[in-house]
């Protein structure tokens, strides 16, 4: 059939471009998600620091919290495509026409955008942790920072992992909006191939399949991680130091 022939021809001729686009899409989505998560964790920790009694510190904390709140609201409340245009061309206007290098610019835009969402996800994760976990940590003498790093964040990460993988999948798809500033990710490559071949349906069908394979395998992979992080549901009763066979393996009831 003519259609499959067309698809075959496009793939044979342009596969390096699709592959490059795919690589860049994955790179931007992955780094963007990781940096976004770090931003989320940092803002989450800062926002949950108990307010100080000292006036100066108190006002600094309040100001920082307001800045974080504005950041979250602005970046959550505007489309990433618009942010990309504003940041990329805004920088060019302020710097005499010099534009940001495209790949770092793409990563930056995805990161701060994801960061805004992650901030809320992490905040929700921290709120959902039992207050007793904080009190337990404080009562043994941990600082807020230590309590967060050693006790709270590990539990938060486990709880929000489904949301993180969701953000990652969203990012894989949403990097496509970066084509407006010319980042050569998968969608951009497809639009270029499409302009060369004038085979709009065939070209976009190819990347449609590519996007799906990416997101589907990522979802599976992260589901596996979730299971791993949930930990073994069995443990060992240590019977004797010298005789390992005396150990009793206990499985937790589901």
């Amino acid at each position, binding site marked *: 059939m003519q259609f499959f022939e067309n698809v075959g021809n496009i793939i044979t001729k342009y596969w390096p471009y699709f592959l490059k686009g795919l690589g860049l899409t994955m790179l931007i989505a992955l780094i963007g998600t990781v940096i976004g998560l770090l931003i989320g964790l940092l803002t989450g920790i800062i926002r949950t620091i108990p307010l100080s009694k000292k006036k100066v510190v108190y006002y600094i904390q309040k100001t920082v919290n307001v800045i974080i709140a504005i950041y979250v609201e602005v970046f959550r409340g505007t489309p990433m495509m618009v942010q990309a245009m504003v940041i990329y061309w805004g920088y060019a206007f302020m710097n005499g026409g010099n534009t940001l290098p495209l790949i770092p610019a793409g990563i930056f835009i995805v990161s701060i955008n994801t960061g805004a969402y992650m901030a809320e996800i992490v905040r929700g994760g921290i709120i959902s942790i039992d207050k007793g*976990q904080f009190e337990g*940590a404080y*009562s*043994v*003498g941990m600082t807020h920072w230590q309590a967060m790093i050693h*006790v709270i964040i590990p539990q938060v990460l486990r709880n929000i992992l489904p949301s993180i993988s969701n953000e990652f999948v969203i990012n894989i798809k949403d990097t496509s909006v970066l084509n407006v500033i010319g980042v050569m990710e998968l969608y951009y490559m497809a639009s270029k191939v499409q302009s060369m071949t004038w085979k709009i349906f065939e070209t976009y069908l190819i990347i449609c399949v590519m996007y799906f394979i990416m997101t589907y395998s990522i979802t599976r992979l992260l589901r596996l991680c979730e299971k791993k992080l949930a930990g073994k549901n069995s*443990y060992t009763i*240590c019977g004797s130091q010298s005789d390992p066979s005396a150990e009793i393996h*206990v499985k*937790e009831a589901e």
Partner: protein
Amino acid sequence: MENKSTQTVVELCHLEKSFGDHEVLKDINLSVHKGEVISVIGSSGSGKSTMLRCINLLEIPTGGKIYYEGTDIESKEIKLTSYRAKVEMVFQQFNLFNNMTALDNCVKPQMIVLKRTREEAERIALEYIEKVGMSAYRNAKPSQLSGGQKQRIAIARALSMNPDVILFDEPTSALDPEMVGEVLEVMKSLAKAGYTMIVVTHEMGFAREVSDRVIFMDGGYIVEEGTPEEIFSSPKMERTKEFLSRVL
């Protein structure tokens, strides 16, 4: 009880705490001596737990002072975190770290707060886990333990920090009746070993048998204090009598 010193470890002076308009503590004065076991009894809402939480600074007092070995704990001369490490707390809801095994619950705080090495911390932790009879379960996660087992690990965690004072906030109230015994046994052995303990409890038997001093609180005040004999056999105040007649 053998050689109790008269050295004061913790002292509360005119301690007050209110949540908004609601006054929970209204002038609490108390000296805790080294090696002393104090039981705090009283009906719900009398301010017992709040007093304990104020001593650990989980609640910030709204009036009065708390002295630790003569130093105001809210002053700059003492670091909040090192003070808390000295005055450990055992909670009604255990508050074990859910992301760590029983052993790590006792090891990590030592490493983080006291900067002990893993080996040293593990040695100390295992010693106390043994003491509370939980050696076999050291690799279990909190979610895999029963209430009584969790509370024993929580006690081992507190002991591992080598504290000067241990605060018990209704340690048996969240337990099934058949598990209360195992936790009280551990606490009795600690009392015998000479630990300084403040125990908020509804277990009158424990208060009577183990404590050096019993404090009865009501309406945000310490209404009466004395030896177990004095409080339980010949209470002076009418409110104490009334309370004891209800619970005994």
